[in-house]
């Protein structure tokens, strides 16, 4: 059965935290619950599960790619057509260091950005349950994503805990 989502809009951080705790106690799993805010909060403000990411691996991975590309560009192109310039050896270390350095950093940055998008689970084509007031007015959204049979109960729980309004998602 396809999953459906319902969004509850709240004003108070503590109410969101309490709602999240009681939803967990009612049997909802962490991956069925999601908080949305218009600006960052300190981690754990709502008692949400700590997001784990592997973002720190991407720069090193990118650096290795960049180093390899630099190796091919410098060594490969200069040996392909050896032309002595300025009395320097064909493979001169100081200039090669410059190209190595730049390429390593460039690919490190590119792969880090791609990693950041991947770890953020972007691009997300279907946004699910969402309300514009989260970004524009500072409301806090609590989204429950469950099977269709449980969605009504989730919506009632959100209303019971004082959600300003609830909204079903467009999947």
């Amino acid at each position, binding site marked *: 059965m396809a999953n459906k989502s319902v969004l509850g809009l709240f*004003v108070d*951080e503590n109410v969101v935290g309490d709602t999240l705790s009681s939803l967990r106690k009612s049997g909802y799993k962490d991956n069925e619950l999601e908080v949305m805010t218009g600006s960052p909060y300190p*981690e*754990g*403000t709502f008692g949400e599960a700590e997001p784990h990411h592997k973002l720190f691996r991407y720069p090193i991975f990118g650096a290795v790619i960049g180093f390899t590309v630099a190796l091919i560009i410098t060594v490969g192109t200069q040996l392909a057509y050896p032309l002595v310039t300025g009395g320097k050896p064909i493979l001169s270390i*100081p200039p090669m260091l410059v190209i190595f350095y730049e390429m390593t950093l460039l690919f490190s940055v590119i792969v880090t950005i791609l990693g950041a998008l991947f770890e953020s689970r972007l691009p997300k084509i279907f946004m699910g349950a969402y309300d514009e007031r989260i970004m524009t*007015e*500072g*409301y806090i959204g609590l989204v429950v994503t469950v099977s269709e049979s449980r969605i009504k109960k989730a919506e009632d729980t959100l209303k019971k805990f004082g959600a300003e309004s609830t909204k079903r998602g467009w999947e």
Partner: protein
Amino acid sequence: MKLEYDSKTRKGKLIYPEKVIERSLGKVPPSKDLIDKHLHKRGGMFRISLMFTAIFSVIGILGTIFKIINGFDNLSDWSVYVTACVFIFTTFMGAPMLSMATKVARGNWSRPVSRLSEIFCISGIAGLLMFLPILWVLPSLEDGRNTLWFYDPGKVPAYSPHIWTTIAMIAFILTALALLWINARPDFAILRDNSKGKNKIYSFLSWGWVGSTKQWNSLRQRVSILGIFYFMLLITVHFCLASDFLMTLLPGWIDSLYPVTQAHNAIQGGVAVLIIAVFIAWKWGGYKQYIGLDQFWGLGKLLFGISLLWVWFFISSLMVLWYGKKPNERDVLQILMFGKYLPVFLGTIFFVFIIPFTLLILNNVRKSFYGPPIIAISVLIGNFLDRFRHYSSAYSLDRTIDENTHRFANLPEIYVPSIVDIMVLLGAISLPIFLILIISKYVPIISLWENREYILYGSHEKYHHTEVLVEGKPY
């Protein structure tokens, strides 16, 4: 978030109130534990260290006397001596910089280690004592040595660089000592009021400190002004040492960046030696409650950044000297890097850059108790090798010019230290440590007032369903 908001009409605004935390030091006395730790009799390990450093310092002094007896004419005999002296200035005397820099940046993590960094200024006395014989070693301007000071016979005294460097060095050391005393005055007052038996010493050192608002304000002003002077004098001393006491002895070496490079190396060496001192205080000094992972992490990050800068300074010089293939520059590179001193050069790169970079880039190593100290030892070894390849090669250089090629007739072999040189080296490392150990008996190595001050500005607070650190910055 507070709701000043009517949900029916949807009018109003959601606003974050400023959370107010009340703080007071009124009922919080200075840390009794820290006072007791400072005042209690030092243990066996301290006394053994004191004894060994004293013995090696005497050996070093004897070595210096032998050298003086042998005379000042042969420059190459003094290579290692000069290396050792400059090593003190590029390690021990760079450490106080951390305290000044973090006070300007208003970083709270350095509070437990700032006093330890300031205490290193006492090693300047050892450096100055070692430096004095070198004034007779360095040729005067009359001997034809080229200099930055545009020597004009009769217009500039022949020993002007010697005099200016000595004045700069004395000013540097005095500024550092003044900074230590000014920063430690409140602590001396605390000890005056809490110690039994040593009241007279602390009364004298505290110099009438009562903690009035005027005194605190003037402390802050003096520290910022003297801190700036300290930095300027660090640059000046290294500028004088690197230009007159090094570069002018290697004809053909025109490197406008090197004085700045040496000043930077001093800061790097200072951070490294401070990390080791902090580790010793943490591991064996009984300060585990006060020195934590944050301090090693902060110092590790600094060491990492500074080691990266080392390579930038190095490549900046190398690229310009290497690229044009001018004969004088090629000779300089042969002498300092690619000739006989190649193993020393490779060792320098390995210890001062490759090891810190490859290890400190890993977060687990940077944020650990043992990682930064081990890497700091590597940096100090590399720092010494760097000084060695510069000063030993310059002082042991044969300056005969070949008439046909107009280049050096002979490039220097690696200078091999003699027994007397080893004695001097041991003394150069031990005497600063000895002086630091002595002064630590009177100056608390963890600042009592700074750590007490932090109670006002830093605390853990509950934040909805989590806990956060709240830090205030009053200035």
